[in-house]
């Protein structure tokens, strides 16, 4: 199998047209020890533009090649700083300024909640910067391949043997001398590598019109495909059980009505089920005509009223209407509901306070249904009666 692949490689290698410009002289070695020795000798001989190619990382190679510290660490650190800055400014803008939302009583922008995002973006940007930095800065991107690719040398250096290549850019480079030197340190299959034709052409193949057109076509196809997949395909229901029904949904078209909308104003003079309007909404007390209580005073309505009162009114007015709840002094203290004034009020007056609100007390018309509000009135009457019991109430 390996032999077959190597053979195929060799055939490919001959396909690449080579120029006469020398890129490097390369030699192969059989064992890790030999290559480490060769690398040490090469750097001792004063060459500094050379590289070692091995099928797997070799411990100790950095020292043998006398590699200087690279700038990758600093580069990655800056990339990480960029990531953390992007994260802070993004969250700061989004939740601190542009779209303020109270979540769990926390400040709009807070560092603690942002730390996971800062952490993630730091790592993400470090990774992306390093990959693209590698392609652009270290792999010199417009050049799409290293001249060593598709050579006999690389075929072995990436599978079963180890290789060193001294590049023509080196100040002491001289083809014959380098060949002799490599042979001297035990190199085998020494090979002079020439630049492929395409590498010394002025424009890199990635700037060729054909390639750019291809990119455009790929971009358009992916964009349309993505739009179709996300916008249309995803919305196809495999089963539409009860999803489509004979009714109009809000904010959709409807052919039943002349203006083509599904949402219509109620016909004048009609009332929607369960929505009895209050004629005096928002009117000053002087204009309000008091209604009479439609809910009969009985055990059921009192129980109902008690439940609703304890839920909605007791946080301020207290469980017995004395105005002594746990909200005391945290909100304007409500007056007692046992005052002579309220006792003498008609049911409709209490109902009006609940429905329209009074000064700082807000309206409860939205939370509590009409019948329940009347039931609360009944319950308040019970509380008042209990507080101001007469002798005749005793058995």
């Amino acid at each position, binding site marked *: 199998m390996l032999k077959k692949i190597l053979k195929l490689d060799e055939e490919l290698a001959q396909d690449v047209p080579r120029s006469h410009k020398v890129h490097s002289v390369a030699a192969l070695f059989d064992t890790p020890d030999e290559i480490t020795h060769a690398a040490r000798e090469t750097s001792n001989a004063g060459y500094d533009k050379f590289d070692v190619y091995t099928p797997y990382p070799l411990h100790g190679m950095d020292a043998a090649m006398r590699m200087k*510290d690279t700038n990758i660490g600093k580069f990655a650190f800056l990339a990480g700083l960029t990531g953390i800055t992007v994260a802070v400014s993004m969250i700061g803008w989004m939740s601190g300024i542009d779209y303020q939302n109270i979540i769990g009583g*926390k400040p709009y922008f807070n560092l603690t909640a942002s730390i996971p995002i800062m952490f993630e973006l730091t790592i993400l940007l470090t990774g992306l910067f390093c990959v693209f930095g590698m392609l652009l800065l270290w792999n010199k991107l417009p050049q799409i391949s290293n001249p060593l690719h598709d050579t006999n040398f690389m075929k072995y250096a990436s599978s079963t043997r180890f290789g060193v290549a001294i590049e023509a850019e080196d100040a002491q480079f001289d083809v014959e001398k380098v060949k002799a030197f490599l042979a001297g340190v035990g190199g085998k299959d020494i090979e002079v590598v020439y630049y492929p034709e395409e590498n010394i052409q002025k424009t890199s193949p990635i700037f060729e019109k054909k390639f750019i057109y291809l990119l455009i076509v790929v971009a358009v196809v992916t964009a349309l495909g993505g739009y179709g997949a996300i916008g249309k395909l995803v919305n196809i229901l495999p089963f539409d059980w009860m999803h489509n029904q004979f009714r109009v949904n809000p904010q959709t078209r409807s052919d039943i009505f002349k203006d083509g909308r599904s949402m219509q104003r109620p016909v004048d003079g009609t009332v929607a089920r369960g929505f009895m309007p209050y004629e005096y909404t928002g009117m000053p007390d002087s204009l309000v005509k008091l209604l009479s209580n439609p809910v009969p005073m009985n055990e059921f309505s009192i129980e109902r009223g008690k439940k609703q009162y304890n839920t909605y009114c007791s946080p301020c007015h207290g469980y017995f209407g004395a105005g002594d709840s746990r909200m005391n002094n945290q909100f304007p203290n409500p007056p007692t509901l046992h005052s002579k004034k309220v006792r003498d009020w008609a049911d409709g007056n209490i109902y009006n306070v609940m429905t329209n609100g009074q000064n700082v007390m807000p309206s409860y018309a939205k939370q509590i249904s009409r019948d329940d509000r009347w039931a609360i009135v009944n319950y308040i009457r019970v509380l008042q009666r209990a507080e101001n019991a007469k002798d005749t109430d005793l058995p």
Partner: protein
Amino acid sequence: MESINKPIPDKISKLGYLLTGIGLLIIVVSFLVDKQRGAFDYLWIYMFLTSVGIGGLALTALEYLVGATWSVPFRRVCEFLAGIIPLLVILVMPLIFSMHDLFHWTHPEAVANDPILKAKAPYLNMNFFMIRVVFCILVWFLFYYFFTKNSKKQDTSKDPALTRKNIKLSVAFAPLFFISLSIAAIDWMMSLEPHWFSTIYGVYYFAGTIVCTLAIVTFISIHLKENGYLSPRLGNDQFYSLGTLLFGFNIFWGYIAFSQYILIWYADIPEETYWYMMRWHNGWQYVSMGLLFIHFVIPFLVLLPRSVKVNLKTLKIMSIWMVFAHMLDLYWLIMPTYSKSPVLGWQELGIFFFAPGLIMIVFGMKASKENLTPVGDPKLEAGLNFTL
């Protein structure tokens, strides 16, 4: 195998006895002056020494478990540190006799009036507590005994079968270690606030323990190397590996500390947040902030570049720094229960004498009887040849 037969000078042990003596004096006087304060300070010292002892044992086991070679030249240092474990039997005694001063849940009348403590009583009661204390120390002691026995025997017999034995031991030790360490952390420190709970508490203590022990191992190894007690073939690459491990585990500590914090902060439930509130008022907020910077932010930035980790001088400084950071961490975990605001008097200085002193005594004693390098280990050669 070349082994450096340079004996550790007596002055290490002598200095150790001196420091331990001063520390002991402070502890005793402190107990006499104010029993409760003395007990809390002593708990702090005890947890620190537990960290070092079981941390040394864990690093020894870790080397066998993962088959590391680079760390073999340092293994004796870890084994010597684990030599604290037998002493824990004596060290724990003062705590056993001051349970009432430390733990609210040991008072029957407090438990009787407290539904939460009543519900936790099946775990938090004296008898079961003692059983767990004995269990933990016994587990550590047994593994310490067998690991070091095999390792020492190998120095003369050079028998690779002993390495295989220790590998098997380390497989059994790994789960027992995590269970016993979590129990120790929960019992001795989390139950100081018996209403509070955090499921990540054991991991948090583990992270601190490993950081601290790695720092001590790094410090001692560099010191030995600088003074010529370790093989001259030992290069910077092995120390760099210690440094990266230290750096990595410190990030782990930060990660765990933040994981614990963010969940409690987000849920914002009073029964959990009060533990942090205790550490955010009356001056404790400065200790908390200090911990964040001293244990995480500063070491992270300093240890990040490679150049710092290959340089033995900077690495040595950072390792002392991290030991101090772990002491601060334990202080922050334990002391808020004792005092509403941070205390620092002569009583708190005890740890700085007693703990290093005791480590020196143990180290000096072990080093006088055993090789500083495991000369019979089959992986030693590879460990000395290790290059990055």
